[in-house]
């Protein structure tokens, strides 16, 4: 493939995906639209976790809790007459601040110890959702969360709400792309690969760790704020630890540290169980086996498989070029 074709490949593929995401749902029924919206919403949370875990290398089992905080913020505020945009803004700020604070333990502990700290936070958040009935409605949760209107335009119909979620996902995608392509993205990768060396090169690892947690958590909160009007009901079990594990799986299966990993991972996690429902009670077994087989074959996830393929091709091409250069130098010497 020549350079011109290669340069066209990525934009063409992105254009096809964008067209599919815009036009395909026009043919979907109510359930298809619900699943598609759920994919968009969960992808936002997975993008946040991918920033924290995939790029910056900070293990977090708390992303589900941030989705919950965002969802409850939106549910509480919108049922009290606040506009959804204001609720989203508040959820973002709240989750950013809590995520920043949750980052402090990461300055002292790493890996599985950090996983346990974030797991404890997740459990704590669940207990607040379930027990603080005066605020969260307790085990009953909060129902009849309204879908918003934007500039007098109702987003209650499923198709319109799907487009709203897709629009927010597009904004998040562009913002995240800008972030990972900025010097911050390089600093996050340095943090993940070699924090000691990063620090010796002037990277303030403390600030970047806190920012990785805060931004990732804020995206979790944004996802939750979109989730509440989508489902119309927020209740504690939806934001239990299993959601954090699901989001972790989306990032790992898609490919942690790859930009498109969360998109692919969320698609697998949201759509595959649905596609396998014809297997009735065996679908979860097959689903688990497929995920296990994938991770054994490619620990870097689905995007990692493609990446390995392209790296192999590039290495082969570079080796051929070097061999040709050596041969020409030898012949010149002779």
């Amino acid at each position, binding site marked *: 493939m020549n350079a011109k074709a290669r340069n066209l490949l990525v934009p063409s593929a992105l254009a096809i995906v964008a067209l599919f995401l815009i036009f395909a749902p026009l043919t979907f029924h109510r359930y298809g639209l619900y699943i598609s919206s759920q994919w968009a919403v969960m992808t936002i949370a997975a993008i946040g976790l991918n920033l924290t875990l995939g790029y910056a290398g900070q293990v977090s089992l708390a992303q589900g809790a941030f989705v919950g905080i965002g969802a409850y913020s939106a549910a509480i505020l919108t049922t009290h007459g606040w506009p959804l945009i204001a609720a989203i803004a508040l959820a973002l700020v709240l989750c950013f601040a809590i995520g920043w604070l949750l980052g402090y333990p990461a300055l002292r502990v790493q890996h599985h110890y950090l996983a346990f700290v974030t797991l404890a936070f997740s459990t704590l958040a669940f207990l607040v959702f379930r027990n603080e009935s005066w605020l969260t409605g307790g085990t009953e949760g909060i129902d009849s969360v309204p879908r918003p209107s934007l500039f007098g335009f109702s987003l209650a119909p499923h198709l319109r709400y799907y487009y709203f979620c897709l629009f927010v996902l597009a904004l998040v995608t562009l913002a995240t792309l800008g972030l990972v392509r*900025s*010097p911050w993205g390089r600093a996050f990768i340095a943090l993940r690969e070699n924090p000691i060396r*990063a*620090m*010796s090169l002037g*990277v303030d690892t403390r600030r970047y760790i806190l920012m990785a947690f805060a931004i990732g958590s804020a995206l979790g909160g944004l996802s939750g704020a979109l989730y509440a009007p989508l489902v119309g009901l927020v209740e504690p079990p939806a934001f239990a630890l299993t959601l954090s594990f699901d989001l972790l799986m989306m990032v790992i299966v898609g490919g942690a540290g790859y930009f498109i990993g969360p998109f692919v991972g969320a698609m697998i996690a949201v759509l595959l169980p649905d596609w396998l429902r014809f297997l009735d009670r065996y679908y979860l077994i097959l689903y688990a086996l497929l995920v296990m087989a994938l991770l054994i074959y490619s620990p870097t996830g689905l995007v990692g498989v493609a990446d390995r393929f392209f790296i192999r091709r590039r*290495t082969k091409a570079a080796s051929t070029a070097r061999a040709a250069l050596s041969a020409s130098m030898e012949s010149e010497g002779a």
Partner: protein
Amino acid sequence: MKTVLEVANLKKSFGGIAAVDGVSFDVREGEILGIIGPNGCGKSTLFNCILGQLAPSEGEVRLDGHVTTGMRPCDLNRLGVSRTFQLLQIFPKLSVRDNLILAAQEHQGTMLGRLFGRRDAGLAEAAKRMIAFFKLDHLADEIAGGLSYGQQKLLDAAMAFMSGPRLVLLDEPAGGVNLTMLANLKDRLKAFNEERGATFVVIEHNMDFVMSLCSRVLVLAEGKVLAEGLPTDVRANPAVIEAYLGH
């Protein structure tokens, strides 16, 4: 000549073991100081204490007369102090160019400014010059993890120089590097010292490398300074021969 670095009575103990035991020395502007000594004599621990990677048990480190003891490595780096490590420390998944840009990007503007600024933080030209200086031109876009060990050593050293430091501490830069690469590395270090006036402190076991590069040598043994002086004097010192060089 102005004193850049002063180390005064520095001590570092791990439990009952004194890895660095009252070391004092200073480094003058533009000089290349070599630190030699047998394995386990505290050379790398001394570096780590100077550079904030480890907190010293006692003593003081001064940079340009200001106390920097306990300062974080990233803050010291911003004051113009850079280092390499005994074991290779590059970012294997980034390209050679990105490794170099990363090595200096935190010196450009504010953290918020870097978020909204240019991807290369305005360092693409500087990275290109550094790549050419270390003769890595043909590898600029290669992933660093795919380079040979010697090339990675050169990249490691280049990263330490990327931010234009005044003082560079090099921990065994010649370790595991073949003779051709070693000559190239020495040549580059000398050029940096002469052309840009950078000051070096070099830990090294390769005596030929130390003798031909350094203007002064400090010998450590069991965490203490055993000898200090010109390379030829140190080489002829009976105590140094006994403790380290051998007959």
